[in-house]
């Protein structure tokens, strides 16, 4: 698998293309921005950029978790449930007990801890019971969401503890426009830090290389001496932490803790990660590609409105874009033999 990846790299398609089609993605984004900018000059404003940054920052953190799972050859559909569980539970706990109500950081630490615990549930099912990742996370998604709505709360909470309330109105930048101001949340900073850390971890640490190795071929990774089970526990714990933080970011930003939110949007984030060049077979993917994938989808949504396309066409456009993206990927790597039936067999051949 890693050999296949390196032959892919050896194909002379121009280095700008990037290992995971990042170059093509960036080009698509630039072309799209120019086209939209020509059609409507109001696109070329700082507010558009801030808008996209603000609306994508929680999804980017969610996508980091999904990226790690997909690189390891698995798939996770429980991260949104973990995110909203953590975010909502923190609001409930701080409102009721006053614990850490003045310091937003305590809320985030709490959310990360909750996320870690829920992530361990996944780790237990996947590394312990050895269930397929899709099945395991499908099950935990139901459990986590059900427990949240049945026991933690099912009401929308509009009042926030002071710490988180202040954070939700802290902005780095403000773009003034006649139609109204657009602000960039300070939460962009932790999102960037997380992206950088994940990127460094994947590239330079043993466990990061282990994640790629498992995704390439779990059995080979085991024989090469990687502690596969321990790495899997790490993966699902980390994904839980990231989902908890992302959920907290989301809840902070919308300033309305709604326990019915997020769940159901898993496939959109997975789509963005895959569009960003991560291979659903594992062993392939990058942080930059993932960020570009999330940004591209957000850009399509934003620009369609500016282009005068009715809002009802948004979903169809994103779907068409996704199909074009995965088709391009499939055709681009057709030199590599791919299984047609599913995700299973590449490792055995």
């Amino acid at each position, binding site marked *: 698998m890693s050999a296949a990846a390196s032959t892919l790299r050896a194909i002379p398609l121009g280095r700008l293309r990037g290992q995971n089609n990042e170059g093509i993605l960036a080009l698509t984004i630039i072309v799209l921005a120019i086209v939209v900018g020509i059609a409507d000059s109001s696109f070329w404003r700082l507010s558009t950029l801030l808008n996209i940054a603000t609306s994508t920052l929680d999804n980017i953190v969610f996508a980091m978790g999904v990226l790690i799972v997909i690189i390891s050859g698995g798939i996770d559909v429980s991260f949104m449930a973990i995110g909203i569980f953590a975010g909502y539970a923190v609001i409930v706990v701080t409102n009721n007990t006053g614990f850490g109500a003045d310091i937003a950081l305590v809320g985030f630490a709490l959310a990360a801890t909750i996320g870690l615990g829920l992530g361990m549930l996944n780790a237990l099912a996947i590394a312990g019971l050895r269930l*397929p990742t899709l099945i395991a996370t499908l099950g935990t998604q139901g459990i986590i969401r059900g427990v949240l709505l049945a026991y933690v709360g099912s009401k929308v909470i509009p009042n926030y503890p002071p710490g988180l309330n202040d954070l939700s109105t802290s902005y780095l930048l403000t773009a003034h426009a006649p139609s109204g101001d657009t602000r960039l949340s300070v939460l962009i900073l932790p999102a960037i830090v997380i992206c950088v850390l994940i990127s460094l971890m994947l590239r330079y640490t043993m466990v990061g290389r282990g994640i790629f190795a498992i995704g390439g071929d779990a059995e080979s990774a085991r024989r090469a001496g990687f502690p596969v089970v321990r790495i899997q526990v790490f993966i699902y714990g980390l994904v839980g932490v990231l989902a908890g933080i992302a959920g907290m970011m989301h809840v902070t930003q919308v300033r309305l803790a709604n326990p019915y939110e997020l769940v159901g949007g898993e496939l959109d984030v997975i789509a963005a990660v895959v569009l960003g060049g991560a291979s659903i077979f594992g062993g392939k993917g990058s942080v930059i590609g993932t960020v570009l994938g999330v940004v591209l989808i957000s850009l399509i949504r934003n620009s369609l409105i500016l282009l005068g396309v009715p809002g*009802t066409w948004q979903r169809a456009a994103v779907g068409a874009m996704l199909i074009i993206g995965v088709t391009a990927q499939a055709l681009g790597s057709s030199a590599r033999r791919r299984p047609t039936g599913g995700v299973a067999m590449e490792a055995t051949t």
Partner: protein
Amino acid sequence: MSAAAAEPRREDPTARLVRRLVPDASVVRLFVLAVLVLIVFSVASPDFLTLINFQSMGLQVTEVGLLSLAIMVSMLTGGIDLSIISIANVAALVTAQLFAHHGGADAGSQQMGLYVVVGIAAGTACGLLNGVLIAKLRITPILATLGTMQLFNGLAIAWTGGKAIYGMPDSFLNIGNGYVGDVPIPVLILLGGAVLTAIFINRTGRGLRIQLLGANEVAAKYSGLRNERVLFVTYLASAFLASLAGIVIAARSASASADYGASYLLLAIVIVVLGGVNPLGGFGTVTGVVLAAFTLQMVNTGFNQVGFNAFLYQVAQGVILIGALGLSQLSERYGWASRLARAMPWRARGEPGVPEPPGALGPQLRTPGESHREEDVRGRPV
């Protein structure tokens, strides 16, 4: 049928029926689970074991049951079809729009038949795109159908502006709410769909090729199968079953909308996997899937009657899924499965090797060395 008649060993017809319906240990486990659920809720709620309750459960189970069969067909090849809900809604919308624009609530039965056929045809046509993407362009099924799910749903939203369509004649609504004797018509449709699927999978060349492809793609290729064509047929069949579900949805809810039933997707996957279908492909039984659908419906209704919080049903789904598969995983590791199989004489008879439960998968979706997958197909009376 002819294969069974040609068998030299004479067989008791009841035993043969049992062997057909209960092909492996996972179905036995599921049956035990279903009976347990039935007993628990019959004791807990006086209204549970009544004809009316079973009729209402029957009305509810059909939609998701048909959708589960659609997922099952795609999962047999080791793929998955995430676009089934969107396809079901397309079929429902096409039929509903035809009623709304031509005939309305006064449409005759001939018109109705035509509209239903057109609706199902439109839904099945959506499967064509899946087929092209997966079979011809070789895109991974989960990605291709993730895209088409959004595309079909998006087109449906754009077409209707996101509004629901009403105005269907009573004769059409009867499909979703009527009875034949004491049996709700949707249940008959579900059973009809199940029998059709079972015959398709087990008694036709195409169906067997689908299973072989899922069991071992490379072997299938070297045995001269045109995998491309087999995959194409798979996603057409999946879209057809989804469209059938769409018609039932429209008839039962007396409306059609682009956003109906989004929560059915994960539930259908839960049902299929609980029903013993191997997510890696090559193995699955219609009996198991239908049994799993009814079991979860019983849990759902039972929870309502006992007065549990509605969201606990979601928890129960997850616990049942992980519990059932985790148990089969552990039993395989500690050898309980072979003991259980030995207790099933109709299965073990004359067959080398004990069938392993289909839940016996590795930690990853792509774990190597699934020897049992070949065995499942080989060991099946063809």
